[in-house]
């Protein structure tokens, strides 16, 4: 009989345990924000004022940022500061404006204002953008998330006024040939655009612009002779 009681007692005990309220894990912690990049993207980019069809005094590039934590029904302040290794001068060569994350937002494109200064004609300056502490955010955690994107807390921008090979040229080379400053300047002068990335010109531009450039080059060469680039190579399309 005692054994049966033990079984009944044990059964009641299990039943009581089963009825125990489960704790739901909710986010608790500081509000944070970080830059984020695609799975195969690198944590840096380059920009040059050299290829703009019309000379620019300033330009703006945008860095993608994403919060880590809850959304709020109020706007929140984001601050970015120059990180270690920055060779450009804040306020002189570039600006990190205080940005506002709108209410209920998760991501924002943070604007980095680049200023065209004479020293950029001779050397590329490095800007390291780092997430700074603001009233609303701390720097976020880093690493890859489920969707493949990566959270980082510093992003490097190389800025110059020298004709440098754009990062997208690996893809553009198939359509427009190997990079040279002479080639891209000719392309800009004919087409009136300076960004030849596939994202901007699409398949149509990739297949059509080379014909326009080739015809324009025929006219150019009729007057000026072959167009030779800075590597001593004849430019063709």
């Amino acid at each position, binding site marked *: *009989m*005692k*054994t*049966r009681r033990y079984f009944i007692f044990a059964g009641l005990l299990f039943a009581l345990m089963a009825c125990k309220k489960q704790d739901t894990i909710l986010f608790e912690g500081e509000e944070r924000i970080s830059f984020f990049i695609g799975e195969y993207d690198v944590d840096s980019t380059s920009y040059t004022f050299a290829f703009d069809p019309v000379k620019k005094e300033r330009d703006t590039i945008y860095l993608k940022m994403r919060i880590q934590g809850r959304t709020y029904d109020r706007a929140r302040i984001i601050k970015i500061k120059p990180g270690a290794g920055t060779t450009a001068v804040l306020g002189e060569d570039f600006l990190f404006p205080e940005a506002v994350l709108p209410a209920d937002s998760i991501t924002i494109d943070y604007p980095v204002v680049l200023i065209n200064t004479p020293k950029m004609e001779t050397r590329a300056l490095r800007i390291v953008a780092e997430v700074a502490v603001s009233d609303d955010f701390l720097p976020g955690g880093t690493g890859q998330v489920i969707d493949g994107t990566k959270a980082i807390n510093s992003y490097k921008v190389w800025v110059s006024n020298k004709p440098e090979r754009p990062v997208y040229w690996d893809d553009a080379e198939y359509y427009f040939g190997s990079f040279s400053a002479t080639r891209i300047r000719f392309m800009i002068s004919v087409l009136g655009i300076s960004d030849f990335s596939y994202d901007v010109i*699409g*398949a*149509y531009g990739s*297949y*059509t612009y*080379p*014909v*326009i450039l*080739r*015809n324009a080059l*025929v006219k150019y060469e009729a007057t000026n002779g072959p167009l030779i680039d800075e590597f001593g190579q004849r430019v063709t399309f």
Partner: protein
Amino acid sequence: MKGNRFLKYTIGHLRLGLIALLMQGCSSFEQDFSLSPIGEVKILMEKSEYDVVQLEKIHIPVTITGPSGKTGRYAYRWKAMTNEAVYILSDKKDLDTIINLPPQQYNIQYTVTDLDNGLEFNKQLFLNVNGAFYEGWLVSHNQGGKGKLTFIRADNVVFPDPVGQANNLSFPENLKSTFYTQIPYRAKYASIASFTGTEIFRFDPNTFKLTGKSQEVFMSPSGYDGIAWDSGLSGIDQYFINKGEIHVGMGDFYPEDILKPYTPGLGGDYDLFPAVISSNSRKTFFYDNKYKRFMEIPYFGREITPAANGSNTTLNILDMSNVGKTMIAAEKGRVTSSSGVFYCVMEDNEGRYVAGITNTDPSLFQKVMDSQCPEFSKTKLFAASGLFQHMYYAVGNKLYLYNIVANTAELLYSFPSSYTITDIEINRKTSRTLAVATLDGTSGTLNLFDINDLGQFVDGTPKKVFGNFGHIVHINIK
């Protein structure tokens, strides 16, 4: 001891339970396999596939046969389906409605629901919704210095001036040609393009609404002459030849770019004959009458180069890179999705020749003698069959059938001596109809000849004759 007793009780109870389960398992299970009819409804229609012209009424009568002796209470539903959408057409027994669906083929599901027992019975069929201008001949003709485009539909209904009706537009000068431009399997992006000497007018092929003029079609328009249009065999690129220059448009891989302007002329030292020789799926041939050789462009290519001189096997037939003759005509013969044959009429001081280009190589080269093929050397009007190794050619008022294999020709038909044949075109879809345009003074006529299994004209006369045209300068088929 107490433990043993508990074990003994437990085993005893388990034995009892097992015996009870066995007894339950052995009991008979009352099953009823008797059948009773559920009242199947039979649905009968005349055909399993119907054609209708958009915005016109369709009537599909249905015969419903219920179980014997039963007057059923039924509900009906006509449903048209595509991969993208479902349309409810009617809830009546017979389909008797105006079809305002977009032109394409639909799967129709006809459902009869027996209201007494809730059972549904279905019948599947196809419905082809054609635009009002679904298929037919595009006839470009001129009168008094003004061009007009007439559409003769496949069912012989004539639309004398669909461009004028749709756009309140008349061509300001003579037409040179009109093309139906459709990349294979991309009917959604097809168009109709009419050329005058200075302008192109592009129309929606289903409505004839104007969709663009020169600036929307060519980047740097500068007048039109010697025009040819076709896509490559694989549809990856489109080619427009104009004034001896080649322009390339986007194709099947980028359908959203198909209607964007063609490239400027690709440039180079050549003078192309107006023919797109799409005999191969990886590259397309052209012919340069300046240096008298074939040229080629690979798919996705935007440069034109002299064609390779072929293999040793084919060099003794023809050196495509050095032909040395002037092209007079290039006509598409039998074509599959991966290769095709083109018959090229050429001439030099010695006379005329026919060359065959099959896939990437020459397959035929023979001199054509007027003694065997009357007046062959006097014309530029040719049309090749897609079924037989035949070409039709027209000289003055006469129509001949040229048998390519036999290298001989026979007279098929003579119009009255006052008539002059101005263009001929074969229906590429069937190769069973030849359209022949004639001019008598200032009055044009379009004659449709049916073609029999020997390539000759059925009954030796035109099957249909359409009058009231001006000078017909070009026939094309949509």
